[in-house]
């Protein structure tokens, strides 16, 4: 059916952006299992207890990551309306905010008053480490998308790579929405 439709010159229902979107959401579902397990390990090992962490730093990097979701949304909205300039600036701002977030996590690691040999240190470094790895990979993906966007690759009707990268970034943001209170605020 799909081959016949393609041969006939009609858009196949199986070769459509909505299928990409479903695939991406399935990927998010599998990632949710990973992050959910990390979250459950945190409470299994430590209950709601926690060691001292830099509260202000945690709050600031959270605000920065949430702000990066807004700039990512701006980029996607702009390209949908064929506004490439705003889309490019939105992507650039998202990358910069992501780098600041990653730097903040690195600073937290460098100044932590606990070690990886303690239960809380184990969950803290594992959770923030796995999440930071996703942030860094997201920055890389957004960088590739920005490079393509600067070449005029995307239009209002054809911008799935940009939309997919932005959705991934939002997902990473959602994960931190749960990790932040679990690591910094519960006790």
């Amino acid at each position, binding site marked *: 059916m799909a081959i016949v439709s393609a041969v006939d010159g009609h858009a196949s229902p199986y070769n459509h952006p909505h299928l990409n979107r479903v695939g991406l959401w399935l990927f998010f579902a599998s990632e949710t299992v990973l992050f959910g397990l990390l979250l459950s390990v945190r409470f299994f090992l430590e209950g709601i207890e926690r060691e001292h962490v830099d509260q202000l730093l945690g709050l600031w990097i959270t605000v920065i990551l949430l702000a990066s979701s*807004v700039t990512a949304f701006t980029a996607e909205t702009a390209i949908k309306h064929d506004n490439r300039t705003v889309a490019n600036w939105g992507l650039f701002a998202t990358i910069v905010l992501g780098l600041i977030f990653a730097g903040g996590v690195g600073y937290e690691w460098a100044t932590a008053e606990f070690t990886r040999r303690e239960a809380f240190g184990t969950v803290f470094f594992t959770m923030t480490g796995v999440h930071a790895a996703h942030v860094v990979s997201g920055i890389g993906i957004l960088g590739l998308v920005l490079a393509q966007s600067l070449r005029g690759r995307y239009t209002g009707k*054809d911008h799935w790579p940009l939309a997919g990268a932005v959705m991934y970034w939002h997902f990473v943001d959602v994960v931190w929405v749960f990790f932040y209170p679990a690591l910094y605020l519960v006790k």
Partner: protein
Amino acid sequence: MQEAMRIGLVVAAILAVLTFVEYVFAVNVSNDVLRFIGLALAAFGKAGAIIYYFMHVNRIWRVEESH
């Protein structure tokens, strides 16, 4: 585009308020159970706003929508 950006700004404001409330709540509430419930509600509220408005979860099965 203005309508979409207006939605984005409203969601940004909601996220900012929930994050602030979450922080103040955690610092000032001493009851562990109450604090845990409050933090969970704030987290689910923020996640829901991002998933619905930014990730467009309602469009998953919309075939006619194209990128």
